[in-house]
């Protein structure tokens, strides 16, 4: 943010310590400045910084990215639950059962040892899917998120053929929607209700990013393995820690899936096998089946409550 950069730095801060609170808030919290950083613990400081608020509407656009720290991902086996990221995603989007937008795969790592790999939409910069769509129903928004306009999609599935990550899902029949979804205010950033004959996928919770919240999967991950990053401000957070994004990638040998294809994914992975929580490569971790939104008993009202709770973490804490 322009205003941010020109604003005086507190004395004694060396440039090597870029993650001052202000910078941080400029990055993740600019939209959050509207008071809704939610899971970012620093959110309560936002309101105290009016100049950040002012910068929200100007300056370069945020460019969302993600980094998944596999050293922290152990398939939620430690807490003996199904992958919570998947369940959170299913609940947030009422994802039709059997066509999860986010899946946790077990992958053979170097040496043949398995590790977990949460796979969501890679939000490729050079996205093969957006190129092939005959009607422009799938596209990048200004913040680098690949969205789908379900009012326009004709269901040709060309994008599904093009996606090298198998991310896209199709509503083959009439998908089940939560009661009241018909009245939901549909937008490509929060595609509800689901529609028959159209393609769906993870959209990095564009609706949450707008409110300054990290994606449902990231906030649902009890291990803090998933972080949302803003490449413009070069800052990332998993809801607990805040760090300099590029530095974090470089220091931890981050990689991207099928990098050689040239799709320029915006999701990075830090190699690992859950060692941060004491897991050994030889551990035979068997993850549980994630529950669908129906199985979780999710409704639109409950979702709204959940969102409210995220917006006011301090009141939540006070209870």
């Amino acid at each position, binding site marked *: 943010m322009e205003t941010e950069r020109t604003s005086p730095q507190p004395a004694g801060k060396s440039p090597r310590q870029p993650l001052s609170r202000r910078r941080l808030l400029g990055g993740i919290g600019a939209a959050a400045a509207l008071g809704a950083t939610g899971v970012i613990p620093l959110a309560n400081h936002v309101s105290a910084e009016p100049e950040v608020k002012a910068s929200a509407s100007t300056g370069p656009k945020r460019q969302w990215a993600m980094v998944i720290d596999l050293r922290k991902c152990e398939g939620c086996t430690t807490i003996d639950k199904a992958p919570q990221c998947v369940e959170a995603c299913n609940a947030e989007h009422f994802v039709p059962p059997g066509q999860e937008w986010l899946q946790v795969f077990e992958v*053979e790592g170097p040496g043949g040892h398995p590790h977990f790999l949460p796979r969501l939409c890679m939000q490729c910069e050079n996205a093969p899917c957006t190129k*092939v769509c*005959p009607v422009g129903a799938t596209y990048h928004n200004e913040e680098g998120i690949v969205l789908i306009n379900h009012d326009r999609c004709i269901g040709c*599935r*060309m994008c599904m*053929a093009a996606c*090298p*990550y198998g991310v896209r899902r199709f509503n083959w*029949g009439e998908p089940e929607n939560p009661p009241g979804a018909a009245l939901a205010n549909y937008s490509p950033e929060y595609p509800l209700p689901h529609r028959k004959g159209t393609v769906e996928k993870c959209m990095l919770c564009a609706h949450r990013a707008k409110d300054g919240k990290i994606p449902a999967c990231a906030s649902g991950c009890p291990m803090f393995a998933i972080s949302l990053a803003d490449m413009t401000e070069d800052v990332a957070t998993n809801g607990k820690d805040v760090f300099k994004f590029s530095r974090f990638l470089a220091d931890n040998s981050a990689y991207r899936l099928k990098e050689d294809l040239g799709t320029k994914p915006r999701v990075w992975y830090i190699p690992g096998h859950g060692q941060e929580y004491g897991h050994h490569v030889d551990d035979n971790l068997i993850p549980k089946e994630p529950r669908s939104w129906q199985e979780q008993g999710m409704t639109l009202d409950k979702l709204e409550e959940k969102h409210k709770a995220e917006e006011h973490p301090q009141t939540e804490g006070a209870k």
Partner: protein
Amino acid sequence: MNASERQQRLEERVLAPLTGFSQTWFIWTGCLIALSVLGFIAYAYQVRDGLAVTGMGDDVIWGVYISNFVFFSGLSMAGTFISAILRLTGAEWRRPLTRFSELTTVAALSMCALMPAIDMGRPDRLWHLLVYGRLESPLLWDILVIPTYLAASLIYLFLFLIPDSALLRDRTGVRVSGARHRLYSIFGVRWRGLPEQRRRLELGGTIMMLMIIPLGVATHSVVSWIFGLTFRAGWNSTIFAPYFAVGALYSGTAMLITVMFIFRRVYHLEEYLTEKHFQYLAILLAAFGIIYLYFTFAEYLTVTYKLEGGEDLLLGELFFGRYAPLVWFGFFGGQLLPVVIAAIPKTRTIPLLVTVSVLANIGMWIKRFVIVVPSLSLPLMPYAWGVYTPTAAEIFITIASFAGFALLITIFAKLFPIISIWEMTEGWEEEHSAAEVPPAMPPAQLAPQG
């Protein structure tokens, strides 16, 4: 036999099937209509319940509809294309072949154009293609090129139908119903065979021929690019456009041999569709088949040698796994055998040729299927292989599309002569004048000495 006798005999032979309906004709047409209706019912179910009634899923997102699409586009290639090339090069033997070749193209292309629409998740939004169409999408290239090719083929077919329609208008006026007479008057567009009219027909025809050849190539290229422009193993190939085009010529020529055989048999046209014509088409079939084998070899050599990405898994499944019976049958029965039979003069007899032509097209359909489905079932991430078995709805719709193809040809053949009478006459006239004044150069012959 003098010229006018010969002419009269031709007209009698070729026009005979146009009048009178035999019982077999009713049964045949009735069956085709019944099958088409079944397909419509299946499609109605599909519209109501969505593509969930098909065997497709999030892994294998395309199945027999897209296989049919590629297959019919292939069938359509040869007819108009060969007719145009033979006309342009002045090959005399083309004369009795042009009409039904063009007809085959139009019928196949009509079915081909239906397939993507049937495969769409939201057929109600077809109009989005017109309003929001994006030129960057390979699918839109198909949407633009295929109807253009169909329109051009229709114009081409009906352009060269003018003199024959006029003939029907003038000769059969007494025998046919008023509606038919009106039909012939419309398609005959006041043709009276004047030199000026002939000149214009020739000019129009030449323009269409020149347009049709690149359009035919374009059609098969854009069909191939739906696959070739993705990252999928087995599709990610630079060779796809020419590979598909040659495959299309091969499969289309085989279909021409089949259609020619049927018309010859049913309409008793042995006199005009002779052994020689089968021989010539067989040589074309062998030539296209050999090029196709060459492409197949080049394609598989490069991927098998490098084994990049998921290719090893895919090839394993194709050659030794679940798809092996299909692949090997397609290769030996659908490619190698027809080429050998068609290439050796001894085995190039009509019954054998027709058999291998049918085999070639069964093989080509299989080939399309094993291009579309296995590449899609190959997992992109560490999950299980996709499975795909076509459901009843898909099978009924597929059968209906073949029935529709046959039905279009049947109905056309009932309304219009299946051999271009005026072209035959023109050939005889030229022959006649050539006999009087020997030309400086022999007329161009595409066919080798049979």
